[in-house]
């Protein structure tokens, strides 16, 4: 339903690209997360889709109609896209009900629809209040109700939880996506937090420096990342360079880049998990107790340093570590 083709945007006439040659599709009813660090172009991408910026190259189509290209530009107010901003952007001088009514003033039964929306987000009684009288989480839900009221074909959430603390964030994330799944709307969800993305999205699109590095089902990204960058987004990862290959005595293909997740490196592998094919000795330089588990800073015989985790509180000063060849990640860059 959303088709983006070789989309580019530069804010300095081509010296730097905020977004470069981005191409992807979205199917009806999908929940897709866009993940990237700040400055990766996430926000530029959603602003282009919403019509708040204009592309320098490429096209955006919604339900088969071009809404932005070099020759065509459909105004944001004509796109039927719902957008929930990072800072909620509620109209401060209007009540909650007036905020929700704002986008559906032409509807016949607008009052009923607005009240339905407030019921949906669990704020039925709050209609007469003003935004500043609500908590952050409540404001977030009003923003969602307001965006859903006109029945958008596509709903975009731009970093919706970044203003909240960790506990509230998890709770609200689940609440919000329960509401959204009830409506069955197609969702684009921007976040810098991979936990957010993994917990709610069917598909994840990774942006790095304005380019798409991978778009895949959530489960695949962990198992088969395209690049070291993607791999490290989903957990600490070490590149297996020449020195490590020597230390573990594991010769690998020359023209590829290899890596291993820290959590896949086993400390003092026993007979039970002796499927560790590559093993080496290491000296413990530093132990950091992190509650239940212990972080070890190790020095290998070849002089390399690396960090591993263990549950063993009585770990000795010299240990063996090892990993299995099936856990090696292989990239082509």
């Amino acid at each position: 339903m959303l088709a983006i083709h070789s989309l580019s945007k530069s804010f300095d006439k081509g010296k730097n690209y905020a977004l470069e040659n981005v191409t992807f599709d979205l199917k009806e009813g999908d929940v897709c997360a866009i993940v990237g660090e700040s400055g990766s172009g996430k926000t530029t991408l959603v602003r282009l889709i919403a019509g708040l910026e204009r592309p320098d190259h490429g096209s955006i189509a919604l339900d088969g109609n071009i809404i932005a290209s070099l020759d065509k530009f459909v105004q944001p107010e004509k796109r039927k896209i719902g957008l929930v901003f990072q800072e909620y952007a509620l109209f401060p001088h209007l009540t909650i009900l007036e905020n929700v009514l704002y986008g559906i003033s032409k509807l016949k039964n607008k009052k009923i629809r607005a009240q339905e929306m407030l019921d949906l987000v669990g704020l039925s009684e709050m209609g007469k209040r003003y935004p500043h009288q609500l908590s952050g989480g409540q404001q977030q839900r009003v923003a969602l109700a307001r965006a859903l009221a006109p029945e958008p074909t596509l709903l975009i959430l731009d970093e919706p939880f970044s203003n909240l603390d960790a506990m509230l964030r998890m709770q609200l994330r689940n609440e919000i996506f329960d509401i959204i799944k009830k409506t069955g709307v197609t969702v684009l969800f921007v976040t810098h937090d991979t936990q957010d993305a993994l917990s709610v999205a069917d598909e994840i699109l990774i942006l790095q420096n304005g380019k798409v590095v991978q778009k895949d089902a959530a489960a695949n990204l962990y198992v088969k990342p395209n690049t070291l960058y993607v791999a490290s987004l989903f957990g600490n990862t070490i590149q297996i360079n020449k020195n490590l290959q020597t230390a573990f005595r594991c010769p690998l293909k020359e023209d590829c880049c290899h890596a291993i997740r820290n959590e896949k490196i086993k400390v003092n592998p026993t007979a039970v998990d002796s499927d560790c094919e590559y093993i080496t000795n290491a000296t413990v330089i530093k132990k950091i107790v992190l509650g239940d588990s212990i972080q070890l800073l190790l020095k290998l015989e070849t002089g390399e340093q690396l960090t591993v985790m263990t549950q063993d509180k009585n770990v000795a000063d010299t240990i063996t570590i090892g990993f299995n060849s099936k856990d090696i990640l292989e990239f082509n860059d």
Partner: protein
Amino acid sequence: MKQAGSNRETFSLKSRLKRFKRDSNRWSVFTLAIVIFLALPIIFIGVELFSGPGETWSHIVKYLLPEYIWNSLYLVLFCSILVLVLGVSSAWFVSRFNFPMRKQLEWLLILPLAIPSYIVGYAYAGIFDYGGSLDLIFRQLNLDFIRIDIMNRAGLAFVLSISLFPYVYVSARAFFLNQANNLLEASKMLGVGERKTFFKLMLPLARPAIVAGLVLVLMEVLNDYGAAKYYGVNTFTTGIFRSWFSLEEPETAVYLSALLIIIIFALILFEKWQVRKIKFTSSKSNSTQIQRKTTTKSLKWLIFLVVFLPVLLGFILPVLQLIYWATLTASTVFDVQFLLISLQSFGIAITSAIITVFFALLLIFFSKWSALRFIKNVSRVGVLGYAIPGAVIAIGIMIPTLALDKWLINVLANFGIDSGFIINGTLIALFYAYAVRFLAVAYNPIDSTALKVDNSIPDSSKVLGVGNLKTFFKIEFPLIKTGVFSAVILVFIDVMKELPLTLILKPYHIDTLAVKAYEYASDEMVMEAAIPSLFIIFTAMIPVIFLNKLLIKK
């Protein structure tokens, strides 16, 4: 690779043109139209240059121009020094130290802005004249009166400085209060003393803010007509008036105006250069306010005196002199005629304030709705009128409207209509001129409140299916109301005080309080000028205090 190829293509002329076609909308056209409309007076000055100088031009270049240039240079230099000393020192003391009546002095220091410089000029002439206030005081004390003649260049520079220094005070104080605290604390922690902290750290850092205030002062200095005329100092503005009214040579007025514009653009470039040099200072404003220091008792009173002196000279003394004159002339000046003029003055000021604010709103929002990025920069050109002296704008409007009216009269005469002048010498020309001159005064407070409204708020209105105009009326206007209101008030004061532009363009039968005060003073009836002057001061004072409240809030 393919990517690199498409990038080069992205900024090829062909795709640029395509995007230009896609992104140009009616708002881009409207913005351009408004900018051109506001720049017309200056454009006309440029165009008129091609029709050649007047007969007396060579005479003026030989005998008068050196004097104009020398006097203007003298005023610029003298005023710069005095205004910097007064403005920066009072700003620093007020933000850094505790001393008696600090709170009161903090806003009293702004009040000189309520008095137009020509009125300060009249008052000081009265203080130092034979038979003036000083003379009377000396005689009461049985002393010989040592007369200081101030009706000259130095006196004029003093008068202009003492009435304009608050521009520097306000911008320097804003910097010291909001930006300086972290750095000040860092300097203290490094064990650096008070004096060195000020000269080595605060002064260099505050330079962009100080220069911005100074440039405003110098623009006012070059704009002044009333005080220079009264003190008999020949400047560019008095030269423009002379060539227009006495020599009746518009061509010469145009040439002088063009020269003056060049000087002013040099000033603006100087400011831009100064500000660019230390851009990093304005990066972030600190939430913590500067901590004031308490000093020894004698030092406290010394600081009080230093800060009180500019208030005394710039506000209290001139106002006392005017009040004294007012008591002497009240019976002759106060009549129905005077009431009528006050009402006219009020009506003109409020109407032009509303018109000017309307133009500012159009410019700000049309350029925002235009999808072409360069339009926003172009729109700033419309604001440049604040730099152009009133007399120059008046000349730039007078010449084309005279020609247009003559043409209209001829055309309409063919239809048997005797129209008379339609634009020239009517309120239309006057309102237009005020809008050109004071657009920046309206633009800045509106723009800064509009900037405080996060972009996501109008954006979400648009995403919810509501167009630009409706978004403006339902969302943006309610949120920027205070900015619009203060813009109306600020333009109102400026129009009330305005003299040179009004003198040239005002309709024959209409007077303002400023013009009345000027006429009294030129007719050797300076005492009678006191009452209209006080009227201007008191109307301007209330908003100045109000403006200060806004400043403190910020």
